[in-house]
């Protein structure tokens, strides 16, 4: 971290609005956290009181938001350099680094303690570990050190369904690990596609993304390789207890589309991508968002069908 971020990257130029503090929590990432944690909670074989479930998801979301604020505090210097992140509250001068740090720490403690009180301390411990993993292991250590940053750091984003499952059951099981693996394997192709079309951003910020350290050709090969592994895992999960006919149908269609996208990316070179302004890479990135939401949506539907079948 440079001195700039220590000193609050960011000299505050205007008084912040409430929305600026909310933006520190990365609301879009939070929506993914909320959805996958909710699926983990509802897919579990143990039912939870609706209000306790609502509070648990809220505290998991706040924990995810807190880690986002701490990430913005630490990365304020590189956020200011990258076009994609330059308008975040700290580089934009709306919130100081110290404020983000205080909000991040306070909300981390709050979310873990209240998740423990509302549900159980195993789930709270898992949330605490997730925050630690995202902030310390990914943001402070891996992100600026290794091109595998996205691969290992992706674990942080994969924990929420496990936390949701732990809220209901108080533990871990093969089903929750499968949901973890799905998000974990999905993260690298998702972010590497983004790195391909946000070309200069990571170069300028000196972040060792695969595109910077090993070149764009290697990145394309990696996207294809991880997509193949992801497809095997995603379709294989359809034959376990979280799967079923609906999940399998969704997985077959989406993995076929995802594999086709990865193959197209693999076949292209930089000239072809420049010509259409990275159209294929952008489409693949958009498809990756639908991919994850649809898979978790299908797991949710299967869980609902199981409950209906159990009642009948």
């Amino acid at each position, binding site marked *: 971290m440079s001195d700039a971020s220590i000193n609050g990257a960011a000299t505050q130029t205007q*008084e*912040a*609005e*409430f*929305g600026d*503090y*909310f933006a520190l929590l990365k609301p879009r990432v939070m929506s993914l956290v909320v959805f996958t944690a909710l699926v983990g909670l509802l897919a579990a074989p143990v039912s939870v*009181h609706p*209000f*306790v479930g609502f*509070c648990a998801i*809220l505290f998991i979301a706040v924990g995810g938001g807190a880690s986002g604020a701490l990430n913005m505090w630490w990365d304020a210097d590189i956020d200011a350099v990258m076009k994609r992140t330059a308008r975040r509250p700290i580089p934009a001068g709306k919130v100081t680094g110290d404020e983000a740090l205080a909000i991040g720490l306070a909300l981390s403690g709050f979310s873990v303690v209240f998740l423990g*009180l*509302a549900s159980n301390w195993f789930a709270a411990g898992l949330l605490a570990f997730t925050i630690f993993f995202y902030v310390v292991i990914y943001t402070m250590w891996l992100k600026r050190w290794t091109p595998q940053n996205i691969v290992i750091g992706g674990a942080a984003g994969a924990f929420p369904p496990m936390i949701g499952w732990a809220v209901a059951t108080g533990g871990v099981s093969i089903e929750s690990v499968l949901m973890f693996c799905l998000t974990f394997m999905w993260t690298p192709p998702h972010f590497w596609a983004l790195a391909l079309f946000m070309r200069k951003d990571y170069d300028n910020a000196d972040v060792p993304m695969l595109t910077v350290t090993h070149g764009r050709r290697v990145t394309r090969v990696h996207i294809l390789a991880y997509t193949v592994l992801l497809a095997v895992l995603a379709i294989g999960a359809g034959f376990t207890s979280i799967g079923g006919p609906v999940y399998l149908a969704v997985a077959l269609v989406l993995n076929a589309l995802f594999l086709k996208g990865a193959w197209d990316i693999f076949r292209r070179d930089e000239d072809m991508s420049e010509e259409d302004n990275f159209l294929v890479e952008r489409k693949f990135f958009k498809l990756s968002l639908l991919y994850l939401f649809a898979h978790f949506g299908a797991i949710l539907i299967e869980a609902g069908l199981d409950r209906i079948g159990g009642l009948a």
Partner: protein
Amino acid sequence: MSFGREHELHKRRFGRNLGLGLVLVAFIAIIFGLTVVKVTRGDYDPAIAGGQVSNGN
């Protein structure tokens, strides 16, 4: 010194105060709701708690 005219800064501060106020109200509602759910479910039933103590002894 007069504060009669509303400045853009006042709007910002009002929005921030209102947002924080709503967050605090929501927090109180959540704690109240959780307490009601936990107590009515018997999580803190003195009879159960007493039973656990006597079993422990």
